[in-house]
């Protein structure tokens, strides 16, 4: 537990412990930086946000404390982000795994190219096209995320499907690509060959040996995409007229409501830091080497 704590704490400790492992897969320079420097980064981000922030204060526009607005909006955004994540994480990983298992075959090409294409599109562009298809032409889904008052869980979910899809599309490409390259590397490794030669069934090899190792980098990517997701939320919430943290910041920026703006951004900073720490924690749970490394 102490080792875990040391690893999770941001700062040089985390860097030192993560270092040796990151070197091991230094092939990917980007990965390297993400894995090694993340804890320091959150530390700095949090520090700077604290500096900027002052107090939560009173809204210039609404003449009432900012906190309830921020908390409400954060709750709404969390719902939207949760729907997007619940959809994208399994489907993205599945897409990457399927692509890797069909390496260089048409299915792989379709998943890789399709993932790449939708990932690079701005959220409001995919959002508009999806609204047109499902909201205006097919009329399957509501074009606004503002559900009626007292809507139950499933009604809310129904209203959130369309707004979460653009976020899904942007994240899908990243997650699928990481899962795919992780899978390819793991499939190519000595331990996979050993497992196969031991006579283990293919299914067991994939589940017990390959997947566990392949998904480690993917977890880091998912965590780093949280920051990205927040930027996306600003756009999506504006497009779908959804009362979330993104549209709160947007409205505050337009109205020059600084206390609202600052506490909104600080909240985002905290969410980002927590997400990054959670990813570090999950990483160490899945990768016993990090704990062993800190033992010495």
């Amino acid at each position, binding site marked *: 537990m102490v080792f875990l704590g040391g690893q999770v704490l941001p700062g040089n400790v985390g860097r030192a412990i993560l270092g040796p492992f990151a070197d091991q897969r230094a092939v990917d*320079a980007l990965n390297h*930086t993400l894995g090694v*420097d993340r804890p*320091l*980064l*959150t530390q*700095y*981000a949090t520090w*700077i946000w604290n500096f900027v922030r002052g107090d939560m204060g009173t809204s210039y526009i609404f003449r009432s404390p900012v906190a309830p607005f921020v908390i409400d909006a954060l709750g709404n955004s969390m719902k939207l982000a949760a729907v997007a994540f619940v959809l994208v994480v399994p489907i993205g990983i599945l897409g990457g795994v399927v692509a890797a298992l069909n390496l260089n075959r048409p299915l792989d090409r379709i998943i890789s190219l399709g993932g*790449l*294409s939708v990932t*690079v*599109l*701005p*959220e*409001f*562009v995919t959002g*508009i*096209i999806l*609204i*047109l298809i499902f*909201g*205006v*032409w097919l009329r399957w889904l509501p*074009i*606004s995320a503002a559900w009626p008052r007292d809507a139950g869980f499933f009604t809310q979910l129904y209203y959130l499907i369309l707004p979460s899809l653009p976020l899904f599309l942007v994240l899908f490409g990243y997650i699928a690509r990481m899962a795919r390259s992780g899978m390819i590397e793991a499939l190519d490794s000595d331990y996979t060959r050993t497992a196969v030669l031991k006579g283990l069934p293919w299914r067991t090899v994939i589940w017990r040996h390959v997947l566990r190792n392949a998904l480690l980098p993917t977890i880091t990517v998912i965590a780093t995409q949280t*920051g*990205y997701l*927040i*930027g996306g939320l*600003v*756009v999506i919430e*504006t*497009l779908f007229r959804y009362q979330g943290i993104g549209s709160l*910041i*947007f409205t505050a*920026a*337009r109205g*020059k409501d600084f206390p609202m*703006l600052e506490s909104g*951004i600080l909240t*985002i*900073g905290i969410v*980002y830091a927590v997400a990054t720490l959670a990813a570090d924690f999950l990483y160490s749970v899945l990768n016993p080497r990090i704990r062993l490394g800190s033992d010495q």
Partner: protein
Amino acid sequence: MSAVQTSSPTPDDTRQRGPLAEVLFSLLRSGTFLTGLVIVLFWVGCAIFGEHFAPYDPLADDIINALAPPSAEHWFGTDQIGRDVFSRVIVGSRDILTVAPLATLLATVAGTALGLITGYFRGIVDDVVSRILEAFMAIPVVIVALLAIVALGTSKTTVIVVIGLSFAPIIARTVRSAVLAERELDYVAAAQLRHESALHTMFVEILPNVIPPILVETTVRLGYAIFAVATLSFMGFGIQPPSPDWGLSISSNYGMIGGGFWWTVLFDALAIASLVIGVNLAADGVHGALND
């Protein structure tokens, strides 16, 4: 395509060419790159000459024909004050294709300088600058832009500066890791032994050797810059009316799509999509050509 394939070289030719020609040849043989290039050049052409072949003045309103659906007269229909959507889509490429490349240029210049300095000096300079850059990278571009625009007001210059400075750390990181590898090589030691100044060593000796990763990063960043400019325009923080910019047009028309006026936003959305995908295909081609 067939013309390109017939001119593809035999192995003997390859040996005689310099590295630059080598890269150019593998670029021209890359279908991904050529597809991307064609799409990008199409929009660049529209940006430069669009005014001359657009059937209508993109800014001329015609209230009587407002919100007309696509027809022979107005191929893409008209918007809420009767402006021709087809003409606006064509000319709308101009602002985004000015702002995004300029922002990318700024990011590349600033990022390369920072990357050279952090990679070359290492130690305390590297630690301090790198941590500051990482703090910057932790903040989504949209948020930085919101803050900057609240502080500085909306203008194309603000957008260029915001996007340029937000992307500079990412380029700096790429350049830094390339420089870290280069500075261990003998030619750097030789320059140091000749007592060349640090500036000379960085910019004259090392810089030419780290151009390939910079080029790759720049083309990739251009794609993201277009993404960011379009998004900011859509949010109302970028290019301002009455420009026929795509993001801006979508933002002023999407409120009415519930009424079924799909043509006012669809074509702008498709234009952005095609440009972004085009740039990314080209970037992918450059990446492939330089890493072979």
